[in-house]
């Protein structure tokens, strides 16, 4: 069964995403709303990791042998300025989309397995995953015109 592979992928990417939100919060302290919301979302991702714990214990988790394409370390160097903020939020959006679809795939497996516990975990995390994407989109839509048109930095 390859579920363990996907659980490994999910477990890892949730931690990566939490770390990335924290790095963006740290790097964009001058945008207080970005900093505080990223902190809130990171903390909730910690909660998701925790919820996944017992499942991972049950099924185990495999790390893929293929090279990882998503690294939290890359967020350590956040960009600056209006366009920089936009690019950092866009990277978060890409990473959050990755975890979102990973949840979906794991959820499908949970249905096939009739694993009630895993189904509950998936459904309790759905709202937060949607919330991450919705907030990132909202914030990027707000910043884009000013960053791309008016800014001369």
């Amino acid at each position, binding site marked *: 069964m390859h579920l363990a592979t996907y659980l490994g992928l999910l477990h890892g990417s949730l931690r990566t995403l939490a770390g990335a939100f924290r790095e963006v919060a740290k790097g964009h302290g*001058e*945008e*207080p*709303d970005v900093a*505080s*919301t990223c*902190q*809130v*979302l990171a903390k909730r991702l910690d909660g998701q990791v925790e919820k996944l714990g017992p499942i991972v214990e049950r099924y185990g988790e495999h790390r893929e042998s293929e090279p990882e394409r998503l690294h939290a370390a890359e967020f350590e160097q956040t960009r600056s*300025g*209006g366009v920089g903020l936009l690019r950092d939020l866009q990277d978060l959006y890409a990473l959050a989309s990755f975890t979102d679809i990973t949840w979906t795939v794991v959820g499908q497996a949970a249905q096939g397995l009739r694993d009630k516990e895993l189904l509950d975990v998936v459904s309790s995390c759905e709202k937060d995953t949607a*919330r991450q994407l*919705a*907030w990132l*989109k*909202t914030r990027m*839509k*707000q910043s*884009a*015109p*000013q960053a791309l*048109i*008016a*800014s*001369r*930095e």
Partner: protein
Amino acid sequence: MDRWVQSACVLCSNGCGCDIAVKDGRMVGVRGRAEDIVNHGRLGPKGLFGSWQAHRTDRLTQPLIRRHGVLVETDWDTAMSEVVHRSQELLAEFGSSSHGFYTSGQLFLEEYYTLGVIGKAGIGTPHMDGNTRLCTATAAAALKESFGSDGQPACHTDIDLCDALFLFGHNMAATQTVMWARVLDRLAGPDRPRVVVVDPRRTPVAESADVHLAPLPGTNQALMNGLVRAVIEHGWVDHDYVHRHTLGFDELKSTVEPYTPEHVAEICRVSPVDLLRAAEIFGTSQRVLSTVLQGFYQSHQATAASCQVNNLHLIRGLIGRPGSGVLQMNGQPTAQNTRETGANGDLPGFRNWDNEQHVQELARLWKVDPLTIPHWAPPTHAMQIWRYAEQGSIKFLWISATNPAVSLPELSRIRAILSKKDLFVVAQDGFPTETTELADVVLPAALWGEKQGTFTNLSRVVHLSEQAVEPPGEARSDLDIFLDYASRMGFRDRDGDPLIKWKDAEGAFDAWRECSRGRPCDYTELTYEKLRGGSGIAWGPERLYADGHFPTAADYCEDYGHDLLTGAQTTPTEYKAQRPDGRAFLKAAEYLPPHEQANATYPFLCTTGRSVYHFHTRTKTGRSPELRRAAPEPWVEMSPEDAAELGFGDGDVVLVESERGSVKVPVRIGRCRGGVVFLPFHYGYWDVEHDGHERAANELTLTEWDPVSKQPLFKLSAVRIRRA
């Protein structure tokens, strides 16, 4: 005395009907209008002494322009030519997003609407907001989230009819004295209503309460979740109402489930018994009126906590009935009009920027291309406007009738922004202020009593304020200044006619009536003629939502709503899928601990607030001898226990310091709960010899805001205190 001229007071959001006494072309006094439904003839100390006395003091009487770093007197043509020249130059080089407008809660409806049309259809900038973001933004946001649109549900008469009154973060005795007098009538009369007050200070309002809950600053949402939970738990829910008129009950119920009285008591440091008593009063009274103000609006999770007040009323079905309803209060007197007309950034007539049809309606009305009207994202909120100015992408900032150099958080930052070389600042005011000192062009404005116009109070009551006297020197009404700018800029509609087609206040009012037609705030029934004599008149029925039908239909609502934790927008598709169709939303959110916490270095939490004797930054009230004498200097208030522990006596001068700045003020031992101190925010430094920066509470406050309403968090600064 030669004559009385009809008006209403502009020194708080109550908007008391009054007459201005005129003698030899000067204002010499005021009296309340006995027939007015708002105040029944009463006036408060600010209205009596602050409204007219300041008019003949040190006014701005001539335009000023900065030459070689110094403001010098000039004439209107030179000043306006400079404004228009800079404006056109920047529009040509950088486009409309280089322009920002920061207005007030003090102008008249006609002025806001004109400014709104200039900004949205003339310039086409999304960067329009004002001081109302600091005072009333959460009221509007909470009403939109719960009911689909702005619009105050309850009315003043509900004070006379309620059998329980809840004041959430609202020191009514300091902020709306005449409204408080109406409450005192009830408290001293037969059938006294039960009163519950939520406030970290033991205010006069709290002293009259049956239950006073004093939660730690920043924990309102936990307290509210506890109240909602208790009302549900004890079966005080009107399930029939909830079923027919609301959406989201199950999610609300599961969200508040963890907030047991014991859990809430631990977070908020309140007594669980008191919490249950408050819930019981809400749950068992027949007619409940709630008011909400800055203790919620300027604190952590502002919109979420204010929505819980709406939720309490919705789950009990206590809204839109005599004595029952919500007053999401306004701060400034004309704040309602900036929300209605769109000078605060919203689209006029409570239209939805995310609804293409609403934008088309405005484009048809104004005869402009819909693409001119910025609607690609929510209008830029004040704190973001200042950030863009700081970053240099806003290069032209026009400030009217407000004083951000004292009222915004973290003042050292605001001073630095206003002083930037690449930011052209126009400031329009009746008096020299801390802000006009930093402007590039200063335009002298006529004040209340020196111009004509209407404004709408916290309970939707519209008053006409007539011109009583001529403005001093060369001062002009804000409306005339905006009209002059529009004409010099040559804004045209699609037919080549002038974009702004009116020439005076009544013409602007009539244009606004047309704009409001068919919207929740429909003014078409009101005219200047009807507003003359008698009482002010409310738009809409006496109470909104008497039939349990809310303006939430997707094609009608003002907003599709937000996630209360992050401010993420609900998309049109998601909104429509809920099929609200006239049902109200029971919005839920868990409590999150605030980022700013008391700690070892900064062990106290500081809240800022109001004195009964002053309005805003004292621009008017500080020039009234009586009010000035009553509250001449700032102070810091702390609990007797904290003062004793630090060894401070009444009057000892101390430094109150946060990470961002400090103030030096005398101690007043008083009404705060332990661990919390209070600073009045009114005091700037226009009336002291030295720079005076140690007087303003906002030297300490932090740059952070609510995720939904974007209202800054003035009530939550970690500070330390030491002897000066």
